[in-house]
């Protein structure tokens, strides 16, 4: 059974030298954001991608989503190599992978109502105009929002509500793979679990495969079936959370775990 997503030796190098003359002379300043990453994500899995800022996890997400081209390596979705696909050829795949961004304020166009945002999504997913209104209502219900929210603008919503709309937008395309980039870091602790539980519930109901990017090891421990730890563009450790988090093999993983603040020693 082919894995839903397969990354084979994916690398991404950014060219920092922007000036014309040095470039013509061949003087370059490369920055390797992702180095030689290989991964398999099976259907139904929840992969946790952990690392600190600058480790390349967000860049990797962008490569998976084909928002950025990889410099080398292959990205295979459901067996098909999508690394080099562009435009029309890429279109049928676009729908099947969707992403929820970290900052819900930035991921929603401030000048568009919820209705318009979801409507556009549905339109590109091929839903006929006549059925769109009903579909929008259904989507909102699915993410736990009242149907009346359709007429609101992003700034009229709370952070948690915005994030739900972002999830609804992604779901409108009926994806098979959902990449969530720090979906709850900007939310209050008492709300984080609401969104997380929503994602888990949706995964169960819709059969989604998920990649969950986070810096919070606690979340990964509770939600993920697999964990990949990234440092400086490379995956330094991979396994099931129980193994990786209890018996870290790599120095960096150990360092991360040691830095997680624990509550005080309490006599219960």
């Amino acid at each position, binding site marked *: 059974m082919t894995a839903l997503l397969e990354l084979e030796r994916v690398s991404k190098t950014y060219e920092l030298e922007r000036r014309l003359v040095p470039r013509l002379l061949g003087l370059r300043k490369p920055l390797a954001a992702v180095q030689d990453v290989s991964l398999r994500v099976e259907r139904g899995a929840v992969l946790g991608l952990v690392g600190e800022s600058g480790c390349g996890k967000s860049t990797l997400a962008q490569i998976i989503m084909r928002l950025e081209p990889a410099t080398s390596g292959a990205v295979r979705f459901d067996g098909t190599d999508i690394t080099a696909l562009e435009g029309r050829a890429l279109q049928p795949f676009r729908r099947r992978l969707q992403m929820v961004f970290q900052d819900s304020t930035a991921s929603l166009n401030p000048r568009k109502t919820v209705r318009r945002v979801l409507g556009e999504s549905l339109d590109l997913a091929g839903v006929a105009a006549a059925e769109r209104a009903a579909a929008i209502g259904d989507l909102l219900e699915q993410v736990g929002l009242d149907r009346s929210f359709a007429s609101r603008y992003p700034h009229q919503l709370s952070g948690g509500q915005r994030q739900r709309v972002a999830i609804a937008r992604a779901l409108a395309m009926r994806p098979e793979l959902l990449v969530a980039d720090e979906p709850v870091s900007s939310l*209050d602790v*008492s709300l984080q*679990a609401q969104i997380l539980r929503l994602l888990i519930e949706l995964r169960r109901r819709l059969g989604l495969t998920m990649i969950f990017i986070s810096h919070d090891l606690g979340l990964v421990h*509770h*939600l993920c079936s697999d964990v990949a730890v990234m440092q400086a563009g490379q995956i330094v450790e991979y396994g099931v*959370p129980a193994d990786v988090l209890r018996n870290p093999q790599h120095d960096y993983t150990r360092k991360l775990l040691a*830095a997680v603040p*624990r*509550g005080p020693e309490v006599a219960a």
Partner: protein
Amino acid sequence: MALLEIDNLHIGYPVDGGTVELVRGLSFAMEAGDAVGLVGESGSGKSQTALAILRLLRPPVRILKGSIRFDGQDLAQADERTMRSLRGSMISMVFQDALSGLNPAFTIGTQLTDVITAHRRVGRAEARTIAIEALGMVGIREPEQRLRQYPHQFSGGMRQRVLIAMAIACRPRLLIADEPTTALDVTVQAQIVALLKELRDRLGLALLFITHNLDLMSQVCDRAIVLYGGMLMEEAPVTALFGSPRQPYTRALLSCVPRLSDPPGKITSIDGSPPVAGRLGPGCPFVPRCSLRIEQCDMRPPERANAMRRVACWRAET
């Protein structure tokens, strides 16, 4: 006499037809050398409290009622001149966003020495020495060279250290840290928190640590105050708070934190959403989300206190 004594503090701003209150009757005290954590989520009023102590509230937000006594002097009534002499020297603050806390156009040496010369009667040469010492104390290597550098040449964690150095350069008696690590990576967070702890031990300053991260706060504070909807919910020594939280909100909040030590798959949240200032009734702000609520809760709960802790709840027995 307590170092800092806040009594019945109300902070808010006027709107058509009334006032929106962000902090509603907060009282607490700190002794010299205390390390107190002020914990809360959005809408709790924790940052406003910190800004109020230093009288840095942005108009139209202002102190509506109450007193803030520092060494006996009521800061709520003090004039700007008095406040200027206190800020940076007696009471210092470290903000969350280290990038905007430093002026990108000047070297950190200039900014550090500016703070020092503003409050201590020393020449530039001696100020420089003090600055180097302060940088050394916060763990910045090769401080003499670093003085000549600009903020953008420092990493996020280093910038935060510089801000802390600026805050302690004049040996304040109270250091307020408002979410100093929120924008930083986990490993850097741990370092900064350890640094704060060390500085507190070394310099004997009182520390008011404001955060939404309970576990982080517990690494450096002895006592914690939990705020919600502008009101105090619970105040207790950290071990007591974690071990036996008495207030329903505190209990719920603690259970929400996903811990590595818990068996996997358990994630708890609190139904409903955080309170919106201005839309709160007279009762306990947690009422809409509390599983223990009773009719009495529509009236503001009293603070039940014993020697060690305070709980604001009709249903708490201390």
